[in-house]
């Protein structure tokens, strides 16, 4: 029978009534005739009884999380502090972009549209070689700023509304081209220092365009004509505001979580 001594593990499990039935009967029949195992079981039982008598430690203070009045909770922040400003920031960004388009339209919309359109197209085509995302396709509204993100739909809407409701169809299409190009130039100029990664290729495209532009008097005039310059300044400022708001709308939730 010595070879069949119960293991400490079996005796320990026996105390917890956690022995499988087959092991249980085997261990019990052995215990009935083995003093050594009986003694070990007795000692283990005493040990377990003492361990069970150890009073569980109690929390020295409350570990409750700060509740609604103190908005320090991550989910709370994302819910109330993050999501709403994000939507608000995006809406304001879109508004600024729309105002920028309006400013540009009021500056460049009427005078000498067809010539600029002619010169604008090849430039856009050349740019498409270096940067597909900034490329001007055949459509009048295509050359929207690549870095302006959410502004693009707003700009498209304004322009399409304008071309639909304003001038007669052929002139309207030409308008679109005129509007779109300065638009992209303005917002690129404003965005370049803010968003280097998105701006890399388009910037070179812009310089490409600029070098191609000199034939067009449209782009020499802003420096000479005072009323034009004011309009461009407004457009660039609005574009910058739109981009800052947009960037903020992306970083706001992250910063909120950080400050927890």
């Amino acid at each position, binding site marked *: 029978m010595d070879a069949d001594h119960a293991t400490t593990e079996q005796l*320990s499990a026996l105390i917890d009534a956690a022995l499988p039935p087959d092991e249980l009967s085997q261990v019990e029949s052995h215990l009935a005739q083995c003093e050594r195992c009986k003694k070990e079981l007795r*000692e283990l039982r005493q*040990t377990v009884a003492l*361990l069970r008598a150890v*009073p*569980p430690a109690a929390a020295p203070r409350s*570990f*409750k999380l700060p509740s*609604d009045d103190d908005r320090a909770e*991550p989910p709370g922040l994302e819910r109330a502090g993050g999501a709403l400003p994000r939507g608000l920031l995006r809406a304001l960004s879109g508004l600024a972009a729309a105002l920028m388009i309006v400013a540009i339209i009021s500056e460049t919309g009427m005078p000498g549209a067809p010539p600029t359109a002619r010169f604008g197209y090849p430039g856009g085509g050349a740019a498409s070689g270096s940067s597909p995302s900034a490329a001007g396709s055949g459509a009048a509204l295509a050359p929207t700023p690549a870095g302006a993100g959410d502004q693009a739909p707003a700009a498209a809407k304004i322009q399409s509304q304008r071309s639909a409701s304003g001038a007669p169809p052929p002139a309207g299409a030409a308008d679109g081209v005129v509007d779109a190009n300065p638009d992209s130039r303005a917002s690129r100029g404003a965005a370049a220092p803010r968003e280097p990664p998105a701006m890399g290729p388009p910037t070179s495209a812009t310089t490409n365009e600029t070098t191609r532009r000199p034939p067009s008097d449209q782009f020499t005039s802003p420096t000479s004509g005072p009323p034009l310059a004011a309009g461009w300044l407004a457009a660039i400022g609005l574009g910058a505001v739109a981009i800052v708001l947009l960037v903020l709308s992306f970083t706001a939730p992250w910063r909120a979580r950080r400050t927890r």
Partner: protein
Amino acid sequence: MNNPLVVLSEERWIRAARQGDVDAFNRLVEAYQDIAFAVALRTTGHPDDAADATQEAFLDAFRSISRFRGGSFRAWLVRIVVNACYDLHRSARRRPALSLDGLLEASDAEPWTDGSSPDPEGVALTHETRAAIERALAALPDEQRLAIELVDVQGFSYEESAEALGCAVGTIRSRLARGRARVRDVLSMEGNL
């Protein structure tokens, strides 16, 4: 903890906490902060570290409560607590180990020498025996000490303990046996058995 009424309201709190309800989650904190702290104290061996880890664990639990897939909530929580303790350990904020007296003091909410033990077998620990037990436990490997804390002190089942410590039930069984045997050796050597 297996009281069906408790489980029922617990499920309600968990569901509300999943929706971001901090107050509902705080009901769970209230119910389990003693267990969480006790496990943290057994893991870190220092009350301040244990408190830090417990707070971290509850924050973490609130953040990730959507990943709780039912079963034993306290087992799920204990697992987070143990992980928080090891994270704390890694981050070099570890404090020097506490003296035995400090440990005894920290784990005592109320005096335990007066024999008012809730243990059904009515075992009252003398100060000497208690100190011997703490010494023996402190010398155990973490996994054996935690198995004893969960099964013997907190009354977890083998299954719950296995869930909490992320191992098999058989592993709990053997860790528990080895830990108990070592404690027995210390106690019998010092004439406490």
